């Protein structure tokens, strides 16, 4: 599957395209198929996202899993600061990245 991701213009937060808008949560990301580049251009022009790009991901029962470790770290947060990730209550969340 293909996901569209970028950073929020104002906060810099990592965001994912949900089909209608942008979410900080990877679980809400949808497969953009071959429409990623067009969506990226439209959304960036409307200032709803900064530097969007399309990534490869795998559909898993737990939700999308980005193919590259860099995007998995982007999705979760720094593996060395579990308290600053999107899953601060789960100290083992970092193992999903590896």
């Amino acid at each position: 599957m293909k996901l569209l991701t970028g950073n929020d213009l104002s906060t810099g937060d990592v965001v994912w395209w949900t089909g209608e808008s942008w979410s900080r949560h990877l679980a809400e990301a949808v497969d953009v198929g071959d429409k990623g580049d067009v969506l990226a251009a439209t959304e960036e022009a409307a200032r709803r996202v900064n530097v969007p790009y399309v990534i490869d991901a795998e559909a898993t029962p737990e939700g999308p899993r980005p193919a590259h470790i860099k995007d998995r770290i982007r999705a979760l947060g720094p593996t060395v600061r579990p308290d600053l990730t999107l899953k601060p209550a789960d100290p083992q969340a970092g193992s999903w990245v590896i």
Partner: protein
Amino acid sequence: MYKYDEYDAGIVAARVEEFRDQVQRRLAGHMTEDQFKPLRLMNGLYLQLHAYMLRVAVPYGTLNSRQMHLLAHIARKYDRGYGHFTTRQNLQYNWIKLEDAPDILAELATVEMHAIQTSGNCIRNISSDQFAGAAADEITDPRPWAELLRQWSTFHPEFSYLPRKFKIAVIASDTDRAAMRLHDIGIQIVRNDAGELGARIYAGGGMGRTPMIASLIKEFVPFADFVSYLEACLRVYNRHGRRDNIYKARIKILIHALGAEEYARQVEEEFQAVKALGIDPPQAEFDRIAAHFAPPAFEADAPDTVDRSDPDFAVWLDQNVHAHQAPGYAVVTISLKPIGGIPGDASADQIDVMADLAERYSFDELRVTHAQNIVLPHVRKADLYTVWQALREAGLAEANLDLISDIIACPGLDYCSLANARSIPLAQKISERFAEPARQRDLGELKLKISGCINACGHHHAGHIGILGVDRKGTENYQLLLGGSGAEDVSLADITGPGFSEDGVVDAIERATDLYVRERTPGERFVDTYRRIGMAPFKEAIYG
């Protein structure tokens, strides 16, 4: 330390308001990211993996307590309660909002700080010896020279769009604590036979994907020619440095292509033209700057002895405290490398503690080191125990300076958009593997440096043991290097062979240190043994 005059204050204030306008226009949609990116980078604002990152300049690594307290305040108010001290003696915040950036810069300006020259193809923030003004072995304080270069280079119209970034380090002792010869230009302040101070100039050093050691290009430049000579060095680079290939754009590539002698000849020729422009400041201006760096009012009768009866304190004293030029005083290095911690990170509370200690016990001065530690440069020996107790209470009393757990590590793939592999978890695992204090001290001086990509922000080329993180088909992989040094015995590390997994490289390091313990002669450091016996036995030990 240096105080802004009306020109410094004016240009910094103007830059803040200019950037505020640029941010507003970006947020309002009047600028694209392509248009805005070079403007934000000129103000130290990067976009990293999780958020915007702001890099704050700490000129030649010197701070006062008011500045340090403000860094803590910004960490609390605008970031997530911590800051990261970098290998360029600066500080980075990892979680900045674009809309807050102008307010942060305005707050920094209230304590004479900014983020200028922390990005872009300009002359970057000048770095220096963290023991400047305190070191027992320096011939003069190098910071007035560095400050003069800061004033010369800030917004220099000719050198704001160089072929590539440009880094300068200034030292004034034979002991190199600033990796001087791994800079684009390295400067050592020396005395000539007449006893006059001047600059010995090295050029063409650097790390990155093509590491090189700077070559000596001028034995002695008197102060009267100092700025003109540097101007000539930059002009020759600006004229002939490559702009067609970012990987070949640094001055080291130019000097390698021309040869150091030919580069020096062209600089000399250019210098004759530049000298006629009359840009060198008069001695009185240098004296004005130097007066800001006058030694503090040391007590003439400060006790020169220290009570070593607390064994933990004695260990810290031996490891983290250095000789001072004034009797009765000492230089304290605060390790930001707790076992299992993140190299260079400090919480806002810890930053406040260090600021308070500087104000009370170190004549209001702190320094950031390129090894990502903090220095209290002027502590009375009589106060060392009190300082150590306060540091211990704040989790800042790790007695591991220059030992294997005093690891330099770049932010790596946990934060950096350029990285190929994570650096910090590896640093944590290594420090935990070698955590036992007696074992670390037995291994002695061992500088271990980790970079998460070929850009080498973690100085892996200069590590006695260096580690480079690479991306091997989407998996983190680590190359091991041995034999580098950023000190006066400068050398570039050699790659041992095939790379390792994260756990594999920790095991490989242990096999290398075990070999060292078996092979060393009395007094020999790890790097000395490597130089004596060569790579082959280490390869055999590491790869079997």
